[in-house]
């Protein structure tokens, strides 16, 4: 017993000794920590299943994306004499996000965060950090309402908005002259929001919704007019493509090849607008994908992974170009002159009016990126990337005024 205690103290002394020697040998560099905030049990990461226990899609948190960004910063860390670090902060519910961020700021001096939380976490967090020296990168929420109505200066939306995605998709359809869209709308509120975004995009780029069919997933023969893609697509007017809005996905997967007319399917399946896709082969993307796969144990890099990755890259780039780890300088660079390489072509920057990160949209089929938006021919007077999503005149958010 006594020996045990002595052993313990002896070990402790040795540990402390070792620690102090290490500290004496290498003077600590300033440390720039990025907090990664996530919610335990977030339903967005439950696998999407089909009938029975068939797993259609595994959904993973984008933390690995942030880790890849951190790994890439290692050589710069030596040049800048700044240590970059990630701190993973897990809370139990969206309601706890605001307190966790405030606490990390107060107790540990963390000012930069990547937020991996559902949309309901945003409002309380925005209220808690309003006017404070904190910058939060939204890596997982596409909701336009965060850019339009919440409109908070302490956020940067690294992930493209829903509107950017549907704009990109409709640009491509318009470029093929596939202007007539048949819409299948699911029962979830998010499905209706997605259809609304599509309608706005259609208006913007001269496409039209020829019919909006609400479907009801199921096999009840009495409701076949609502649950059978063949019957839903048997309408009098012709259409060029079928757009499916189905966040539950189980209906969407049965639409291709089941429509009455031989028409391609877009939206929730087959041709989807994305921030990132593992088959993107240009702009150095294969190297990013390969680093991600190595670190994730073989998983393909997805849109939210890309967003978490670019958030870290933006912070590192800001430190590099300002030669500083000071928050004010970093924020000024990120929100101002900062120009970033997202490995998908045109240089990225933050829109001053709503803090959305300007970026290309990849229109991806399962095994190939079919097109990148802005699609050739869709021009903007200053930056073609602003043909996607809310441009300054139409955005209700005015963070720059």
């Amino acid at each position, binding site marked *: 017993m006594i020996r045990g205690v002595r052993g313990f103290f002896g070990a402790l002394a040795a540990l402390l000794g070792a620690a102090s020697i290490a500290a004496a040998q290498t003077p600590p560099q300033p440390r720039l920590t990025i907090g990664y905030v996530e919610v335990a049990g977030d339903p967005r990461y439950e696998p999407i299943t089909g009938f029975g226990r068939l797993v259609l899609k595994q959904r993973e948190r984008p933390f690995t994306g942030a880790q890849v960004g951190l*790994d*890439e910063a*290692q*050589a*710069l860390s*030596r*040049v800048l004499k700044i240590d970059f670090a990630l701190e993973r902060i897990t809370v139990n519910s969206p309601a706890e996000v605001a307190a966790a961020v405030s606490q990390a700021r107060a107790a540990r001096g963390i000012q930069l965060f990547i937020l991996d939380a559902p949309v309901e976490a945003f409002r309380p967090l925005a209220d808690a950090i309003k006017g404070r020296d904190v910058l939060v990168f939204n890596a997982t929420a596409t909701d336009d309402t965060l850019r339009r109505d919440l409109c908070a200066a302490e956020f940067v939306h690294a992930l493209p908005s829903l509107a950017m995605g549907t704009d990109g998709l409709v640009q491509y359809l318009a470029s093929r002259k596939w202007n007539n869209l048949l819409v299948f709308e699911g029962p979830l509120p998010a499905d209706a929001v997605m259809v609304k975004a599509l309608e706005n995009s259609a208006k913007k780029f001269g496409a039209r919704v020829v019919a909006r069919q609400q479907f009801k997933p199921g096999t009840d023969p009495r409701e076949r007019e609502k649950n059978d893609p063949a019957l839903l697509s048997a309408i009098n007017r012709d259409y060029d493509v079928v757009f499916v809005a189905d966040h539950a996905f189980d209906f969407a997967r049965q639409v291709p090849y089941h429509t009455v007319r031989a028409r391609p399917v877009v939206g929730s399946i087959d041709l989807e607008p994305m921030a990132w896709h593992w088959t993107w082969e240009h702009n*150095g993307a294969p*190297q990013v994908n*390969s*680093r991600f796969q190595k670190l994730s144990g073989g998983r393909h890099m997805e849109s939210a992974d890309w967003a978490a990755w670019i958030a870290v890259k933006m912070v590192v*780039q800001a430190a*590099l170009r300002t030669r500083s780890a000071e928050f004010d300088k970093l924020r000024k660079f990120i929100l101002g002159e900062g*120009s970033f*390489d997202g490995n998908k*072509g*045109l*240089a990225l920057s933050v829109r001053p009016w709503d803090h959305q990160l300007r970026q290309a949209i990849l229109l991806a089929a399962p095994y190939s990126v079919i097109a990148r938006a802005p699609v050739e021919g869709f021009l903007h007077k200053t930056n*073609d990337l602003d043909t996607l999503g809310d441009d300054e005149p139409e955005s209700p958010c005015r963070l720059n005024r």
Partner: protein
Amino acid sequence: MRLFAFLAFVLAPIASGLAVQAHAKDTGLIFVSNEKTNNLIVLDPKTYKVVKDIKTSRRPRDMHFSADRSKLYVACGDDDVIDIIDVAKLEVVGKLATGPSPETFALDEKRRRLYVANEEGSTLSVIDIDQNIIVLEVPTGAEPEGVLMSEDGKILYVTSEVGDLVHMVDAEGGHVVQDVVVGTRPRRFAATPDGKELWVTAELSGEVYIIDRAKFSVSGKIEFLPPGMRKTDVTPVGLVMTRDGKTAYVTLGHAAHVAVVDVPSRKIQGYILVGKRSWGITMSRDESKLYVANGFGDDVTVIDAKSRKAIVSVPVGRIPWGVVIDD
């Protein structure tokens, strides 16, 4: 007299043909590496006809001749090897193992070493050519790309595409001595013949950075913008410089042009139209012609340096990466 002239006329090609057999020198043959078709296309310098299609390991990219031009080394990114090609036979005769995804490299024949940037390994591999072993792995910033060896072979300059850095590496010691921050996505190098400056292309910021080699700091930069192009299309990658140190030619990637730069004044003198995603560029020994690999055109554009005009574009294979000439 007439007979003599006639004999000379008949014998000259035979004699040069014999020379090819003996030393494989100055054939003038043009070698193009194709990333996607895993081959080198060998073109005749006069007719631009395909002389030979050499199958290589997967994804051949950077190429360098041995000093006597008997061998051509080719970095093959997807098989992690450097293929060795016999220039007289026009076939692969050996392989050297490298780190993951070799892209560009420098060759030091005196010390019998190869320095290879491993795009996916974030290292520079130092390879002993004779023993075919990796002697050292020098950690670099993420995605190392361009490698340039100093004239005395003691220093290597390496770009890190993701780190926006140029490393100065001690070749013997195998460690990074100094770093300098340049523009976004630095790619490749050219050194001025006076040994004073290092020119580096920055692909994403659309610039060439000029580094003072003595101070190892940035002493200037050149921005490109061909008429009618947008800044975002300008993605410079390859560059060559004339031996008198007066003119540099820079390929502008997606902008499909080659920029002509007056080196002393750093002024852009003009732009020459080539194909899409122009990367690799090389000059004939007499500096009369330039050859540009157009990655998204699947062809090579030949430019007359004097008139600064493209003469012809020759189809070669999928995603041509670079060009070298045996002259």
